[in-house]
Structures are given as C-alpha cells and as structure tokens.
C-alpha cells in the first residue's frame, strides 16, 4: 500500500496559500438574476478602494496565488475595472473574470484579446432567450451573445461559457455545447446552490433527481466540460467525474467579498462562514493562515450521518452551502444526495430553519401600480 498521501488528502488539510481565489469586486450589478448567489444589485458603500484592491493583488503575488477568479455583482461596472485588470496581469497573476457581457464592446474585446494571463467567462443560463431571460432578465441573453460575438471577432481565443444548471435548462446541454463550439468557447456547467437569492427559487429551479442522473451521464460522456468541481455529489452514481472531487472551501480556495470580508466560498456569504476581513492587521494572508474558521475546516471532517454509506468517499457528503441553506446539518447528506438520503433528511426534520444572511444587496423590486 502506498504510504504517500494523495493530492486530495493533502488538500483536505489546507495549503499555506490558496491555489486560486474568488474575488467579488462589487455588489453592484446591472442585472438582477433571480438566483444570484451574492444577492447583488446595489453597491455597498464600504466597498474596497482601488488602492485597497491593489494591496490584495500585491498579497496574491507574495503568496504566489496562481490565479484569481473575479466576479461580483458585475465586475465590469467598477470604474477601475481595467486598471485593476492591468495591475494584476502585469504582475503575472492570472485573472479569469466572470461577466454578464453587457459591458463588453468591440473595442474592449480587442484590448482584452491582447492581454496575457487573462481568461473570460460569460454567464448564460439558457440556450435560448426565453429560458435564459426567465432567470437573468429580459435582454440578458442578447447581451451575452453580443459579448461572445465581440470576443470571437477579436480572436480572443477559448473563453468560457458558464451555465448554472437548473430544472429549465437541464434538457439543453447539447444546445449549450453547440453554442460553445460555434464561438470557439469552452463550456462550463456548474451547480445551483440555495445561496443568496437562490434560496428563494431553489424549489422551483434545482434539478430533479432524474435530471441529475442525466447530467451525470452527460458529464461522463463529455469529459472536456468544466464543472468547477461542483458536481462531486453526483459521484455516487458511478465512476468519479474529472476533478479534485472535494470541497476546497477554506482549504484550497476562498472568497474575498467587495468589502474585504473573507468567506470560505462564494456560496456561503453568511456570518457562520466568515473567516475575517482583509482590512484587519495582517491582511488576507493572516486570515487565510490563522482564522479559526479555516483551521476548523482543515480538521479532518466527520462523515456524521453519512458514516455508514458506502458512497461517502465518492461524494464527501456533498456541498456545505447546499446543506446550510436548506437547514440541514453539515455532517449529513446533501439535500440533493443522489441516493435520496437528503430528501429523507429534509422530510424528517420537524422544524426547518433556513439561515438568512444579514446583508442583502438586492435592488428593491419596483412594482408597477398601473392597471393590468
């Protein structure tokens, strides 16, 4: 038997620096997607300044963090977006930014195509306008496609199209692949969590058990599809999907939010998973290395209620965020456990308490008073 721990084992114990980092640049957004994990819309007045943002980039260089995944809200609405992009890429920090595409133009697409160390991800949640706009708002499909046209025309190369799999778009995977092929892009399929505004639409949008099985089969037959390692809970269905297949939160990755708060991951923006703030003494490095929360996450976990299940090694009990925001205990099955244990656990709960974060940057919904 090999005495060497695998990479997976090593990662569970945490690293001295993240491999990559998720950084939400702003809570401001010009869209209002119904499932937004960060409940974005309005800028937070405590947002990090340009200088503070550059200090974070400096820390990434010191810690030798390989790349940063920038998101939001909509990161391109920050007036210093391009300044920060250049600052990071000039220091050889790889940047992948995720955008709804509304701010991509022919001109800036040309500029972006010329930058090294850059990757771009366009968000899309439907292979046609009806499906997409139902979740992301009217006109959002058209904007995303326009952005893709600009990137293709500018010879950007292989950007990403990132899709959150929902009940409505689960039948459209082949269509998404065709779209990606048409634009010379790479397809990403990622998992919906009941996080942020997602909790309000979870019941309507999360895939059915049957759809999860189909999704698993599709991923196995399309191994070139990226998943952000978000579907390892499906591994109980058969051979593991490509990827590290474990939750990296607080161990390999984490989130820095627009006001400098450090969370275990972008799906748990809640005090329970708040590790610290980059504005405090020691900056991000100290939070990463010394916060109590991250030390806890790096302890070997207990399988808890999943101990006797033969699939635990494959699925690792699923996603913390999915459990937390459906009121399930963290040491138990995922609500979408493919063996049905999550559903059973939800039904068995006498009382379900869904945690709500204190912050919500959603724009107020304007209700028209005109007659129908």
């Amino acid at each position, binding site marked *: 038997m*090999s005495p060497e721990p695998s990479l997976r084992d090593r990662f569970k114990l945490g690293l001295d620096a993240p491999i990559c980092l998720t950084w939400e640049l702003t809570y401001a957004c010009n869209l209002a997607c119904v499932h937004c994990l960060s409940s974005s819309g309005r800028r937070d007045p405590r947002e990090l300044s340009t200088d503070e943002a550059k200090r974070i980039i400096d820390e990434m260089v010191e810690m030798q963090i390989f790349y940063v*995944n920038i*998101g939001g809200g909509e990161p391109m609405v920050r007036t210093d977006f391009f300044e920060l992009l250049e600052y990071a890429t000039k220091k050889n920090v790889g940047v*992948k930014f995720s955008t709804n595409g509304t701010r991509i133009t022919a001109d800036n697409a040309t500029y972006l195509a010329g930058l090294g160390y850059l990757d771009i991800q366009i968000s899309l949640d439907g292979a046609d306008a009806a499906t997409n706009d139902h979740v992301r708002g009217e006109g959002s499909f058209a904007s995303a496609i326009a952005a893709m046209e600009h990137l293709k025309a500018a010879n950007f190369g292989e950007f990403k199209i990132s899709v959150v799999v929902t009940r409505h778009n689960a039948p459209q995977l082949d269509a998404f692949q065709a779209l990606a092929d048409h634009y010379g892009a790479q397809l990403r399929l990622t998992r919906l969590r009941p996080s942020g505004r997602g909790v309000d639409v979870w019941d309507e949008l999360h895939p059915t058990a049957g759809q999860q099985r189909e999704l698993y089969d599709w991923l196995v037959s399309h191994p070139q599809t990226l998943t*952000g390692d978000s579907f390892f809970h499906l591994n109980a269905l058969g051979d593991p999907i490509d990827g*590290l297949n474990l939750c990296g939160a607080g161990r390999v990755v984490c989130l820095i939010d627009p006001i400098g708060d450090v969370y275990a991951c972008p*799906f748990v923006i809640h005090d329970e998973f708040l590790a610290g703030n980059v504005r405090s003494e020691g900056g991000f490095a100290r939070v990463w290395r010394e916060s109590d929360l991250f030390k806890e996450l790096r302890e070997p976990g207990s399988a808890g209620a999943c101990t006797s299940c033969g699939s635990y090694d494959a699925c690792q009990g699923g996603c913390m965020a999915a459990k937390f925001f459906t009121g399930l205990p963290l040491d138990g099955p995922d609500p979408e456990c493919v063996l049905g244990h999550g559903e059973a656990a939800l039904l068995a709960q006498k009382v379900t308490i869904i945690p709500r974060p204190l912050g919500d940057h959603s724009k107020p919904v304007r209700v028209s008073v005109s007659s129908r």
Partner: protein
Amino acid sequence: MDNETAVAAVNTDAEELEVDDLLVEEVSIDGMCGVY
C-alpha cells in the same frame, strides 16, 4: 496490481514509460466551487 515501491517499469528500448503517480500527480482544478 499493487505497487509496493515507486518503481517505473521500462521496456528494453525505452519506447514507452510506465509511470506510477508517486512523484507527479496532475489535478484537474477549475475554480473549485462552481460559479467562477
């Protein structure tokens, strides 16, 4: 087939190398958490 030690088997004219993963392991890592 169990490898007790980190030995790579090489055929006589070294056309192909069999590698176990004790020294090098590649990982597929894409953001790790999904959305970004």
